[in-house]
């Protein structure tokens, strides 16, 4: 095989005031024809910048190539003009982005946008192009191609939009497809379909794929070769199997080990104590606020007769895809949303939605998803932690005492109290958020995707911390997540939701190994890296023996 892309000693400079000088530093790598090369790294590793450089899509004002060469099909393209790059892009290099919604023009039909990609590199007639657009829609498995090409992006689902992006990228039979985290914004089942589609297209068109991802499971599923990046440098590269099984660098090993094992027996599951949160027949419909007279027709059921109990000291993972109602249920429990029907009781006392919650609510606290949005940027950590405790009747001295204790408990320096949130990293902020929830000495912690915005290595640390604190304080926890791996790492029990209903509820072992519902089975099958998982657990077992 010959190399399609060869990068030698490439450095890309960041603007003057950035926290480091180079986004990409002395990187050399090659992409062979027809292979899938995965570029892996955590946020800030420079992987996306590198991909943009290959396609000449660097934002010229902020990033520029400082040194090195990028050879595409033997020709150095590192310094060529925008006009020459234009002839390569879309023709020989196709590009797919992470957010299919914002990557499509909202005011043009998708057929038009696919046709544009063809017209840019072809002077042929319109009729031929229209036929080709339909062909591409079929090739990317868009449903009902004749109608869907006349639709606008907002009328499509996330997965369909990403298929449109793929159709545009492969419109001119390129040699290289660059996919920058193309499935990160999608649900797992959709992700699995898109991955399958990309592999299938690679097979049929024989193109090379540069796939950028942070997800080791995805790497295991699709990569022929892997390049691992960290802080702008290539740390390790090699055949995917080799790197995943026997990483040579400690960083790579840590990255791999941080991925929670799906079928693990490592955690001591505990049996539920007496039920103390009981949800009975909870229903909630979202109505179109601008057309409230259309009652049932347009009302989508966010919750549809949900029954759930959580026992004392138990951790329940609530798993589902976007729109399943899992977040809404969490909001009802914690008092951030009202419901239409059903009841919610906590230690025998009824909870009454968002109003009249003073007596019971402080005992149910919440940890949020986005570590950057969950702390008030204008308050110091001291106020963030103590304000609610003081409002709930604690004296300032007592509140400050528990603040210092909790900061240490979550692994921060007590001196953190006098700083503002922006002084902390994502993982540290999540620790502060956890400390804030613990300040009110809750009995039940609702954690809404608390690790999904974090890099995988930080994710593992926060999960460990949560498990530890939960055990030490005897808390119960409702852990909301879209990720079965994360669920398996922390849950005693797993509850699966789909379209506002609970479709599966059982001990973690059972749901992960012998799911009872079709949907849970589909979810499980879609978890990336399953085959790798098996070989991995065999290795684990071998190591244990």
């Amino acid at each position, binding site marked *: 095989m010959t190399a399609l892309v060869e990068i030698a000693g490439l450095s890309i400079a960041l603007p003057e005031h950035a926290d480091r000088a180079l986004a990409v530093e002395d990187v050399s790598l090659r992409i062979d024809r027809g292979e899938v090369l995965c570029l892996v790294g955590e946020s800030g590793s420079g992987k996306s910048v590198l991909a943009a450089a290959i*396609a000449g899509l660097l934002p010229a004002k902020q990033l520029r190539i400082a040194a090195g060469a990028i050879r595409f099909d033997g020709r150095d393209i590192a310094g060529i003009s925008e006009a020459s790059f234009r002839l390569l892009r879309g023709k020989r290099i*196709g*590009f797919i*982005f992470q957010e299919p919604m914002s990557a499509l023009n909202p*005011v*043009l039909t998708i057929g038009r946008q696919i046709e544009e*990609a063809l017209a840019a590199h072809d002077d042929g007639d319109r009729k031929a192009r229209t036929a080709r657009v339909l062909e591409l829609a079929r090739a990317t498995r868009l449903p009902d191609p004749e109608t869907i090409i006349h639709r606008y992006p907002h009328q499509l689902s996330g997965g369909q939009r990403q298929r449109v992006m793929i159709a545009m990228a492969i419109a001119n039979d390129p040699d290289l497809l660059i996919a920058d985290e193309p499935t990160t914004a999608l649900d797992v089942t959709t992700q699995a379909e898109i991955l399958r589609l990309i592999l299938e297209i690679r097979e049929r068109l024989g193109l090379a794929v540069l796939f950028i991802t942070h997800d080791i499971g995805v790497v295991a599923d699709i990569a022929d070769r892997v390049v691992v990046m960290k802080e702008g440098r290539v740390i390790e590269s090699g055949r995917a199997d080799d790197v995943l099984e026997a990483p040579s660098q400690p960083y790579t090993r840590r990255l791999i080990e941080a991925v929670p094992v799906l079928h693990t027996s490592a955690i001591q599951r505990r049996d539920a104590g007496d039920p103390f949160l009981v949800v009975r027949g909870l229903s909630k419909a979202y109505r179109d606020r601008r*057309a409230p007279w259309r009652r049932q027709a347009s009302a989508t059921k966010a919750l549809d007769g949900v029954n759930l109990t959580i026992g004392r000291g138990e951790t329940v993972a609530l798993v589902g895809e976007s729109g399943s109602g899992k977040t809404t249920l969490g909001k009802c429990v914690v008092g951030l949303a009202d419901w239409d029907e059903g009841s919610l009781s906590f230690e025998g006392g009824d909870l009454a939605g968002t109003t009249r919650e003073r007596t019971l609510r402080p005992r149910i606290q919440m940890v949020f998803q986005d570590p950057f949005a969950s702390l008030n940027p204008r308050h110091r950590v001291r106020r963030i932690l103590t304000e609610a405790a003081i409002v709930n009747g604690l004296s300032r001295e007592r509140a400050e005492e528990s603040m210092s204790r909790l900061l240490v408990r979550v692994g921060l320096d007590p001196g953190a109290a006098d700083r503002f949130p922006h002084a902390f990293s994502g993982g540290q902020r999540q620790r502060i958020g956890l400390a804030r929830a613990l300040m009110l000495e809750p009995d039940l912690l609702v954690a809404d995707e608390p690790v999904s915005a974090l890099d995988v290595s930080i994710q593992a640390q926060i999960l460990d911390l949560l498990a530890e604190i939960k055990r030490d304080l005897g808390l119960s926890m409702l852990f909301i997540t879209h990720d079965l791996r994360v669920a398996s790492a922390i849950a005693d029990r797993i509850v699966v939701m789909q379209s506002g209903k609970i479709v599966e509820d059982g001990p973690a072992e059972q749901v992960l190994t012998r799911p009872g519902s079709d949907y849970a089975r589909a979810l499980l099958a879609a978890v990336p890296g399953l085959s790798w998982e098996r070989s991995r657990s065999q290795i684990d077992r071998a190591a244990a023996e």
Partner: protein
Amino acid sequence: MDRLGFLTGRAARAVLILFGVIVLNFVLLRLAPGDAASVLAGDQGAADPAFVAELRHDLGLDRSVPEQLWIYTKSLARLDFGQSYRDQRPVVDIIAERLPATLLLTLTAFCFALGTGIALGSIAARHAGSLLDTVLTGISVMFFAMPLFWTGLMAILLFSVWLNWLPSYGMQTVGEGGSDLSLVGDVAVHLILPALTLGLFYMAIYMRVTRASVLDVLDRDFVRTARAKGLKPGLIWRQHVLRNALLPIITFASLQAGQLIGGSILIETVFAWPGVGRLAFDALMQRDYNLLLAIFFITSTIVVVINLAADFLYVAADPRIEMGA
């Protein structure tokens, strides 16, 4: 959201606003010093209480407030704004005479402002950070800071008084007959200064908004997608950048229409342009509140209609129909 529902909602909103204007007019009319009856009576030199009472009855002023409001609403719906206190002619006739002149002035100014504003604003955005951008932005900031009527006065001083290039007064040269063509030419020459003065101020605003909007769109992912497809820069600019950047301008420009028509009172006063604005100024001077409020109502109605038209345009231009709520 479906288009019909959206437009119905918008139409309902327009009716609501019009009703609000009626109520506001009604309240202001009652706040005005002395009621219509005493003004009329005073005019006819008859301070006889019995006569005033009779007049009050004729005008419905002795009924309850809601009844009066209802009567008022009905008369406005018939375009019956009553008599001008001073001219003793139906207010609606007086306004109708003056409306064409104002429409000519404001439409010319609006088209000029929108056209050049959008053009210069997108040029500035396209070359953001360059010297050209700084110059264009500087021009916009300057014109935006000039009081309209002062710009007008300065223009008269420069182009009429000192250079003697352009007429500064009225809409036509007095006593000049001649063919239709020369009449058109004459009006056009008279139009230049007032229309430019009004237009330059609003050009500055549209320029600023367009520049911001284009810069915003340039940052969006789909522009990067268009580049990734290898589209020609001109096509990216037209189909992807401008098409999206101009959407918020539709709403913005239609909201500004009200200000533009309101601004004509100053310009028409400065240039003695025989339009509704000048009429409003005269009404103001003569304390002819009936006429003044009728002008306010009709101007508001025009603005509401323009906004509604802009909503229709927006629906046609944006498949998502998500207005700037």
